[in-house]
């Protein structure tokens, strides 16, 4: 009885608990998982998000003229699982708390997040490629202070190998046949393999 009175008392005091939406504003939690957005400045086109996407909502299609790729997320297929956000190595893709999703049928196939991500030419050979963000490259090469990170991220995978052979390898490079640094040898090769994933796949 006392419990019932307490509830009644609260109801009288606090008024109706109906959410005013759609006639007024509603409450959206900060961490609510809504529409997916991608940051074209950071995305490096590795395709991990597309690989893990449970609903096949992500498409990454390189343009035929090699100027870049179109990154598309179809909200009508996205199941808001946030796997893409979890697995993206650079944090380029995330979910906003925008849940305003109802739309008429005419807009069905335009209900997308679409971003163009441009390639930049390799500093040495000019091959179009997608650079690693500097912060990520710094993390990858953390244990290799002898590697010039600012330079390495401007190079395509092939030129990076050449650069590595030129500066680190014990094998004789025609111009400078200096004695190899045995200590630094294994690690840079491994780091390069990781970074190589970042390059656009033709």
């Amino acid at each position, binding site marked *: 009885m006392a419990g019932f009175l307490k509830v009644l008392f609260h109801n009288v005091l606090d008024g109706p608990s109906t959410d005013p939406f759609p006639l007024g504003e*509603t409450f959206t939690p900060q961490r609510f998982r809504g529409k997916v957005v991608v940051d074209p400045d950071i995305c490096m086109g590795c395709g991990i998000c597309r690989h893990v996407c449970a609903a096949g909502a992500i498409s990454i299609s390189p343009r035929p003229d090699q100027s870049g790729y179109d990154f598309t997320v179809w909200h*009508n297929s996205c199941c*808001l*699982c946030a796997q893409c956000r979890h697995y993206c190595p650079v944090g380029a893709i995330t979910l906003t708390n925008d*849940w305003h999703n109802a739309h008429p049928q005419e807009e069905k196939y335009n*209900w997308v997040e679409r971003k163009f991500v441009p390639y930049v030419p390799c500093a040495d050979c000019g091959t179009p490629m997608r650079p690693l963000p500097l912060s990520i490259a710094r993390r990858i090469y953390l244990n290799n202070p002898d590697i010039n990170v600012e330079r390495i991220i401007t190079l395509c995978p092939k030129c990076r190998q050449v650069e590595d052979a030129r500066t680190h390898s014990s094998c004789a490079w025609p111009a400078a046949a200096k004695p190899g640094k045995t200590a630094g040898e294994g690690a840079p090769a491994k780091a390069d393999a990781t970074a190589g994933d970042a390059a656009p796949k033709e």
Partner: protein
Amino acid sequence: MNSLLKKLSVRSPWLFRINAGSCNGCDVELATTACIPRYDVERLGCRYCGSPRHADVVLITGPLTARVKDRVLKVWEEIPNPKVTVAVGICPISGGVFREGYSIEGPLDKYIPIDVNVPGCPPRPQSILEGVVLARKIWLQRLGVEE
């Protein structure tokens, strides 16, 4: 005179719900939207009805499985025109996570003209309310009451 009559004779749109093989996630959200006072769809003059012949707005959930396909189409045919069809959840819209499954006949708009899509897996009740508001607007347009 005619338009005045039309205006006066507008009822509230009644909702009907078809489960086309949904995982029940969207149905729970639909029930939440209608049955608990917090979201209270009846403020918009809408209420669920038990028979497709009384319905004006039909909310369909689920990816249209092979098993329910014919029944869904049959029930949908029973709803009198002008009806407004709302696809709730990514399942009926695109097949969602079940797309290209062996038992999936959808997406729904291969068989039924859809008017409003409410994606989400499941969409939150407010999002469904938004869809119902949109559907109501389209319904009134079809009746010639609103432009």
